């Protein structure tokens, strides 16, 4: 227990940073719900319950060179890759300075070239072939980076998932696909989505390593992604990782969550990975109770400042809607 992070080559500072990043993702998300329910922003789609896998995976990547193609719940990934709380709030408020889209897309449609976060859309899973294309380019240019792409388990039924993974497998490309299995595709549970026993078994069809890990266990995800990255850089091709957790909120701010039992959600909340991680760090003597509350205070300060800034920031001019259809 005490040396779990050390065995993985992680320093105390790194795991504290991971904790902070998870907590920041959660607190930004919670703030967005408050803003939505008070009528200040039209829409939220949550990361809650998936922060551990997102941050664990991100820190196993090289955040200076690797490319990510996130999906709409990946607050933890984009924060890890350099997007700021302020930038995320600008997106939530659809303000002109939003680096993802300048207020053109709904929140959760991430993209930021300077941090190698590929721009995403709403039709699910289209990002898988994009990540494969980036990996293909990297291989052609003989570069040492991988591309990392995520999606939900429901999305692993889309053609682009299978076409993309097969392409990556055939050409042995350095791409890591992580399915964030939160057990629900809006209202439809896993067993009505996927005929196979799990998602990772699908890797076999595409000639790649597939593993299922506990998505609430940050270190397990970190270890799986790190190993996948090493394989990719050794020319051993792509990997599929299925990280299993639970979606703690409704699908989105427009979903009433009527299809799940409250007890089921409450049980999952008891296993909240952020709380568990804080406890683990405390038990291992890496972090004290005081530090935990200091971090909480620091994170809330960041969230408050970001909210204030974004709320007061300007919208794009109406005519800006005409710009950037083509190169100008």
């Amino acid at each position, binding site marked *: 227990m005490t040396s779990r992070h050390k065995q993985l080559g992680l320093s105390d500072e790194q795991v504290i940073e991971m904790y902070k990043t998870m907590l920041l993702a959660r607190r930004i998300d919670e703030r967005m719900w408050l803003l939505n329910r008070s009528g200040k922003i039209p829409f939220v789609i949550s990361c809650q319950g998936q922060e551990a896998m997102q941050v664990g995976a991100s820190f196993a990547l090289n955040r200076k060179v690797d490319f990510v193609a996130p999906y709409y719940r990946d607050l933890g990934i984009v924060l890890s890759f350099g997007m700021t709380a302020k930038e995320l709030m600008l997106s939530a408020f659809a303000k002109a300075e939003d680096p993802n889209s300048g207020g053109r897309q709904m929140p959760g449609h991430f993209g930021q*070239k300077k941090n190698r976060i590929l*721009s995403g859309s709403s039709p699910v899973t289209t990002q898988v072939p994009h*990540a494969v294309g*980036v990996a293909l*380019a990297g291989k052609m240019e003989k570069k040492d980076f991988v591309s990392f792409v995520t999606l939900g388990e429901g999305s692993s039924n889309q053609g682009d998932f299978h076409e993309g993974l097969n392409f990556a497998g055939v050409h042995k490309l350095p791409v890591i696909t992580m399915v964030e299995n939160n057990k629900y595709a809006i209202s439809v549970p896993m067993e009505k989505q996927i005929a196979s026993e799990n998602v990772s078994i699908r890797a076999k069809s595409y000639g790649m390593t597939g593993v299922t890990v506990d998505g609430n266990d940050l270190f397990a995800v970190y270890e799986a992604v790190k190993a996948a990255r090493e394989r990719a850089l050794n020319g051993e091709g792509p990997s599929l990782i299925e990280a299993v957790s639970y979606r703690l909120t409704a699908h989105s701010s427009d979903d009433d969550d009527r299809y799940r039992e409250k007890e089921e959600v409450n049980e999952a909340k008891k296993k909240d990975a952020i709380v568990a991680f804080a406890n683990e760090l405390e038990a291992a003597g890496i972090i004290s109770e005081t530090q935990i509350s200091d971090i909480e205070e620091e994170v809330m300060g960041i969230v408050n400042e970001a909210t204030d800034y974004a709320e007061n920031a300007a919208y794009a001019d109406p005519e800006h809607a005409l710009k*950037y259809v083509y190169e100008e």
Partner: protein
Amino acid sequence: MAVMTYIQAITTALREEMIRDEKVFILGEDVGKKGGVFRATDGLYDTFGEDRVLDTPLSESAIAGVGIGAAMYGMRPIAEMQFADFILPAVNQIISEAAKLRYRSNNDWNAPITIRAPYGGGVHGALYHSQSIESIFANQPGLKIVMPSTPYDAKGLLKAAIRDNDPVLFFEHKRAYRLLKGEVPEEDYVLPIGKADVKREGTDITVITYGLCVHFALQAAEKLAEEGISTHILDLRTVYPLDKDAIIEAAKKTGKVLLITEDNLEGSIIGEVAAIIAENCLFDLDAPIKRLAGPDVPAMPYAPTMEKFFMVNPEKCEKAMRDLAEF
């Protein structure tokens, strides 16, 4: 100047661009060892190797999507769809992703990808190897659709497409591949995307068309000239976005306009051309805007009788042009 076929002009453009820029590469089904089912990529695999002339799995959405990803990185992919009819599984990638990428990212990302596909009928290709599919993409801002009618235009426009920083759909008429020959400069040149081209000067009637139909109209115009009817022919070359100025100028020139497409009539490119003329040229017109197109049936049948019935040809053009001249 060398005389070459339409497909040789395509292959030449591909080869020259691959030599010019190492970021240019080709991906598609059978494009490598085989050199393409129409042999558009003939010899490129031998010159540039399998890394730059990539035989992909049979999955059109991945061909488009992987190309888009590579383009986002900064490569210059040329994706080949074996037949335009088979582009449909890739439509989500083309319309939801490539077309919208620059816009949705507020100019942060772009996808400089060229997607080539052979379209068109008259080759006994039946329903699924004959279609014109340009109108599917022709109300998707962010895309450009180029449909050259001559070997000269094909080389210059394909080079322009590859160098363009936005996604370009490049549709080649498969019957034109070996039917059409023309002079093509050996040196490097590009033609502007978005500009129509006058293929024949005339004073009595105006024909606006694109692709193989340009040749049908040119043949018909030769015949009509013998009867003293002078035809002005505008080749759209880029069917989206349209060259409005050139369309208006060509329509005003004679006041009698015939629009021709091989596609099904309703909802085709020429409907938009008609709207541009109607909005801008009312007092210059001496006749109703006329259209000649394929019938509104799903696609052209296999049997030669029915295929011929569907296809636009020089005789149909000639009749429609004469009727308009006599209006």
